[in-house]
């Protein structure tokens, strides 16, 4: 299984939200819905405050509970990778996968009623391109690639920099990494 990962440098992210706009444009995400979003985390006591910006989306987990709990097989892994996709022709709109995601990253695509989510832009990945959010980032703080290739930029960054993932204790083994 090819493991794709996204690495986001929180030290260079300025929280501009371009990734969100790029995603909406690239994937024609319906009005009022978002497949990715930016979180501003502030901690400390004034005046010693630190702020971290995080561009968040589906974590394309190595142990995706949304795929496990889908009753019809609509939620599936794309081409033997960790990219989680939803087959609209198999989706009943039961919403089990929305409840199954500890990161609340899935949504119902209105008005058709099937489930929609971040696809890591697999239609671009197929052509060797980066996902839209990564390629549009003005501060170049986002990286995309395969963790199986030790020479890939994402592998190198995770070897040399301090990083974290969101709520690793869920056991889902998320594949969006944040450099800290």
């Amino acid at each position, binding site marked *: 299984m090819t493991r794709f990962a996204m690495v986001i440098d929180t030290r260079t992210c300025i929280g501009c939200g371009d990734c969100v706009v790029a995603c909406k444009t690239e994937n024609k995400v319906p009005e009022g819905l*978002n497949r990715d979003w930016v979180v501003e985390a502030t*901690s400390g*006591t004034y005046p010693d405050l630190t702020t971290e910006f995080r561009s968040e989306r589906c974590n394309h987990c190595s142990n995706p*509970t949304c795929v*496990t709990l889908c*009753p*019809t*097989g609509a939620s599936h892994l794309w081409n033997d990778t960790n990219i989680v996709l939803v087959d609209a022709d198999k989706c009943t709109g039961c919403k089990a996968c929305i*409840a199954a995601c500890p990161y609340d990253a899935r949504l119902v695509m209105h008005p058709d009623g099937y489930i929609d989510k971040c696809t890591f832009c697999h239609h671009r990945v197929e052509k060797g391109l980066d996902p839209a959010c990564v390629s549009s980032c003005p501060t170049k703080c986002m990286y995309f690639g395969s963790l199986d290739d030790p020479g890939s930029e994402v592998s190198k960054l995770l070897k040399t920099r301090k990083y974290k993932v969101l709520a690793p204790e869920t056991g889902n083994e998320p594949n969006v990494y944040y450099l800290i």
Partner: protein
Amino acid sequence: MHEELLVTGRANALIDPSLHIWTWEVAMYLFLGGLTAGIMVFAAVMALLRKDDEAPFSSTQLALLAPIVLSVGMTTLFLDLEHKLYVFRFYTAFQIASPMSWGAWILILIYPVSILQILSTIRRGYPITNQIVDRWAIARWAVSWCEKHRRQIALVAIPSGVALGIYTGILLSAFSARPFWNSGVLGPLFLVSGLSTAAALVALISSKKSEKELFTRIDLVIILAEIALVALFLINLASGSAQQIEALGSITGGPYTMVFWVLFVGIGLIIPLLIEMLEMRGLMKSLAMVAPVLVLLGGYVLRQVMLDIGQESTWTNYPTQYSSELLERMEMTNR
């Protein structure tokens, strides 16, 4: 302090400000599914114990309610689906790790078993059907066959009913992403609640005094078991992970405290238990109808309250622009 805010204004339908994907349709299905399970189990047990004379309703008439109640439940479940035309997709796959897939196939199993159960007692329970049955040779043959194999059918109906009753709880408990549901006690709890509501239904509908008393006694024991399971469930959460302890907060001072303790535990469990205990001692006979009605109400409230709290319990919690807490805080700083 540590504060996390969504700065790009996420307001995803059904997810923000907190997850709210399933409403009364699913709660009603979970309740009616449990009731159906109880109906099948009691009809089968009474058939095995040959209680046709002492408990005529439960042993010969009750089974007919199973497919009716279940069909109403499946209708409300269907109403909940967002992609309704694709409902057949439940039956083009079997996902071994998905309790919902197991449930879809269990529902398919329930109907034939339930129909065999009905046929095995239809002539005795509903004599009015004799004319119709006698008209066709195949109907006569089918009914006679089922009557002859009544015991075997009952022996199949019990595990089928138990599977239906317990899966509804396992379904919710399998969501590791929802801390409030993530307890193995939920399966047995929903099964026992289903049995309790079915016993209450018999006590309510049966016209025979001895049968009413028998099922009041049965219900009393089941309610005690249900109280024990609720206690185990709460202990499980209270001694669980940080997320589970936080989720438990919604019934220990949080927004669901009243509905859980007063409506479910008080009115749905303790009061009917007390009424039934008094009835056993020959007191409060005038309240005989009240206890089963409260048990049925409690059964529904259990499903609804579990469903609501579970969805709100989460691993990720961002104050968004719709957070009432955040708006209050902003108002305070503006003042």
